[in-house]
């Protein structure tokens, strides 16, 4: 049951992710990206990590994708942007290089991954529950957690600084 569910969601994730890339209309891309996040959340639930599943949907599907859609709706593409991109050779080269670099990073990251099998006798199925996650975050990973908080604060301050009105600036 769990295994067939896993394969169903894995293929759904891949299918949606491919559709994100090959959709002609960027609004469809965003909708497929939302579906991708949903199927990734389904994977989290299969791993008994309900908190991660819920947070993934709230943060990515619920907030960030809304902002993506928001911007895309204002641009209202579909006619001109695509054709200009296709003609530009420089854009093609840049895309190829960037994609190749990303591929190298992925390979480098996956090279040393230990695909260990957890021992069923000692494995705690409750490890993904929110209580355990919180305990681990606030004890074992206290420093990284705090550093990430500082990072967020910095980006928040940066966003406020960019959005702030400067003296003498024309406002419509």
């Amino acid at each position, binding site marked *: 049951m769990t295994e067939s569910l896993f394969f169903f969601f894995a293929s759904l994730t891949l299918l949606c992710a491919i559709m994100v890339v090959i959709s002609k209309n960027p*609004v469809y891309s965003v*909708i497929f990206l*939302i579906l991708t996040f949903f199927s990734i959340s389904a994977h989290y639930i299969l791993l008994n990590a*309900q*908190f991660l599943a*819920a*947070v993934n*949907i*709230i943060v990515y*599907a*619920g*907030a960030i994708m*809304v*902002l993506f*859609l*928001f911007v895309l*709706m*204002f641009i209202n593409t579909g006619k001109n942007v695509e054709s200009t991109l296709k003609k530009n050779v420089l854009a093609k080269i840049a895309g190829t290089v960037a994609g190749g670099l990303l591929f190298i990073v992925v390979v480098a990251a996956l090279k040393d991954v230990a695909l260990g099998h957890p021992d069923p006798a000692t494995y705690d199925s409750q490890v993904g*529950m*929110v209580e355990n996650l919180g305990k681990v975050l606030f004890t074992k990973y206290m420093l990284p957690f705090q550093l990430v908080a500082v990072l967020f604060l910095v980006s928040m301050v940066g966003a406020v600084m960019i959005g702030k009105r400067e003296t003498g600036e024309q406002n419509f």
Partner: protein
Amino acid sequence: MDSVLLIYKGIYILAIFGISLLIATYSTYFERKIAAFIQDRVGPNRAGPMGLLQPLADAGKLFFKEEFIPAKANKGLFILGPGIAMLVAAMSSAVIPFGDTLIIGETSFDLIAIDVNIGILYIFGVVSLGVYGLMIGGWASNNKFSLLGAIRAASQNISYELAMGLSLIAVLMLSGSLSLKVIAEQQTGFNWNIWYQPLGFLIFLICAFAETNRTPFDLPESEAELIGGYHTEYSSMKLGMYLFAEYINIFVVSAVMSTLYFGAYNFPFMENLRNAFDDPVLGNNVVTIIGVAVMFAKIFAFIFFFMWVRWTLPRFRYDQLMKLGWNILIPLAILNILLTGGGILLYEHFTK
């Protein structure tokens, strides 16, 4: 045993679904009656006694109206929009505890559809998806007014979700659990969260108005500036679905507020009543049934409050709305978290 529970859950989910639809249907009637009362009119009184059949007449009218799709609209997404709005609205009542347990024979039945340990996050996630219905519908209409309404809805929902989440954190600090069932159980008798979280409740209430797009925050559909907002181009039952989803959302958010702050199905002296019966099973069941009635009374009180505000307060201006959300509610919510944390520390310091 398992099959009994499975059948029970199925029936219960259907019942909750039916009840939310029924309440949403009659909310339209009561909205008009309350509006009439506040404006010193009579309100709908033609269909049936006291106009009680008015919602059915409205639904019948909406079903038989012309199904119109604008020529330049994106057809697939145009149909998808109201569908998402309705689906998301109907999904969210699944984790709300409408009552305690009923004991029949040997088995005890929980009056909650699915008891997940992240209940409140589930509701939060589902509610945050609701905005897609409005955005996709508004964009697919290919109409500037619809698009503006959709954009307003999106930015408003995101802004107020932050303050809502922050006000929620203070409740979670008190309860120590994300499960709505546990939060409800902790507020036995008159030990409601509202006594500990008055500021948090106020923030949550204001955000709830913004999240359901109700006056004074109904800017996505403000008819004076945007015709109908995101549903300008919609007709027939697709329009009906949008309006219906709004009423279901009001029902759900009222249920959430009753659960989080007003003790869900708990009422004063419930323990005394439970102990007054010789038979513990009978006592439990009586208390549970009264509890369900109390829960629905609280929900109806909130729904009435939503309508009362709608017909009393004028609409905000858009920059005022954003200023209220970002400059006032979020700092207040953070202050509330600090106060709650300090309070919990002081309490533990002096009692241990």
